[in-house]
């Protein structure tokens, strides 16, 4: 199963040059680019771990690619994404988000159904990987 989060997950995996080009687009728009990683890909896991702060005042996307590769050295077996923050009034949130690194295998999610009153079913989505404690997932 391929995790489809992020704006380019239906395209072939991005090369370092692809990452640079997209990060430069964010920078040229005045957005601060950030690198985050996680071993919990649940669709509602909002807060991935931050690989340092968003890179405010960084004019060159090569620095983003450098940080992605530094992050890969430590967390290459996890998901890594690049995010761009726009601080302008009326937005003040994320403008871009794309995955740049994946675990070697992606076991996906189990859909847990709890039969409730009438014909209602309560659904829970559970990542198979998160059955293991943090740090031991995707080993």
């Amino acid at each position, binding site marked *: 199963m391929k995790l489809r989060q992020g*704006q380019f997950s*239906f395209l072939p995996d991005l090369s370092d040059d692809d990452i640079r080009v997209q990060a430069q*687009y964010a920078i040229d728009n005045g957005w601060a680019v950030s690198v985050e990683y996680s071993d919990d890909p649940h*669709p509602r896991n909002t807060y991935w771990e931050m690989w340092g702060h968003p890179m405010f005042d960084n004019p060159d996307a090569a620095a983003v690619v450098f940080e992605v590769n530094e992050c890969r050295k430590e967390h290459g077996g996890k998901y890594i994404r690049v995010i*761009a923050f726009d601080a302008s009034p*009326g*937005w003040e949130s994320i403008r871009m*988000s794309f995955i740049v690194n994946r675990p070697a295998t992606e076991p996906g999610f*189990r*859909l847990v159904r709890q039969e409730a009153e009438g014909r209602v079913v309560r659904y829970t989505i559970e990542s198979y990987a998160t059955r293991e404690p943090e740090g031991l997932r995707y080993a």
Partner: protein
Amino acid sequence: MNEMSNPKMDAKKRYSAGVLKYAQMGYWEPDYTPKDTDVIALFRITPQDGVDAIEAAAAVAGESSTATWTVVWTDRLTACDKYRAKAYRVDPVPNASGEYFAYIAYDLDLFEPGSIANLTASIIGNVFGFKPLKALRLEDMRLPVAYVKTFQGPATGIVVERERLNVYGRPLLGATVKPKLGLSGRNYGRVVYEALKGGLDFTKDDENINSQPFMHWRDRFLYCMEAVNRASAATGEVKGTYLNVTAGTMEQMYERANFAKDLGSVIVMIDLVIGYTAIQSMAKWARDNDMILHLHRAGHSTYTRQRSHGVSFRVIAKWMRLAGVDHLHAGTVVGKLEGDPATTKGYYDIFREERNPMALENGIFFDQDWASLNKMMPVASGGIHAGQMHQLLTYLGEDVVLQFGGGTIGHPHGIQAGATANRVALEAMVFARNAGRDIWNEGEDILRDAAKTCTPLQQALDTWKDVSFNYASTDAPDFAPTPEVSM
């Protein structure tokens, strides 16, 4: 005309019993400067033959505010100068003989705070049937900040919708389930599952899917949520389906909306035909229940499409941003339904900008400040397909839901393949745009390249390569782009 150019009359004469021209009654004030707090309406008026344009404009001002057909002495018990709407400018419409633009200002105290029903009861209440006019169209409105601030605005807004869905940097993708009538709940959910798993963010009930003999609403909701959750587990994405809660009474709509919430849906849907008050009630419900609210503009073309009579969709869009919906259909430009590019841009700007500067070339007659009201997500739907992705992204931008109904479900290799084709085409086009490519001119090459690693996209391009809808628009702007237009 002498009386009209100098309309102020002695009070005793003005209020003696009888019939006066509306202009003489004080509804024509050519020297009036609108206050920052005035509501301003711009009407396109077509007077009957022999009716003076200024008198017609004054009559519209009168009939949409305090006037009746004859003089009433009870006016003098009120601050009637304040409550009278004031026509203050009348211009001939360029290239349209017999039509005039009439600017009319209304004091803020004419309107109840936070009520579209009250606003519209005045502005479009009686006046559209007024005999001295052949036709009347409400083209645009300026809503003062003081009035805008009395409305909730979109329950969720574009930014928070994206945060909840965890989707950034690309248009959202949707599809309306087809056939729109006749599927059982079980079969209906199949379409939802296939489309969402294939790569769409949303599927959608059509406007007339409510609770019919072939599929009652609870069945639809239950099967759709099975489909949504299965697709979410299959892709790791947040998925949604617009469950249409439109019903015969508010009580039924609340019941359906609450059931959708209990089942974990992120979005519900209503139709424009439920009426302005019902829409405002559902917007409040949506804000209170963390729900995105989709509005299908069912019925709007009965009064928005003809250029000489009715209400422009740009005005409906403004009312709906006040009323508080999150999604609203706004045209595709390239698809099967009405929509000239310049006019459609005007609609999109009304949905998505903090502030709209006057842009006559887009049909926007006034500066409009939205006073931090949330933004509405425009929805582009109707006869669009993956092969138009470069045009759609160029015309409509990034904050839009692109809905391919036939363009998903009609794919020769199935619904999942259709959804995947759309998603790959979209991501490839956004990627190329960000990388600095000229997508307008290179769009077809970009799609062809993306199709090399995506067979479903190649099949979609082959199937729909010659489909386009090039018909003359019935509603285009009256003004060509010009650098200088005086107010």
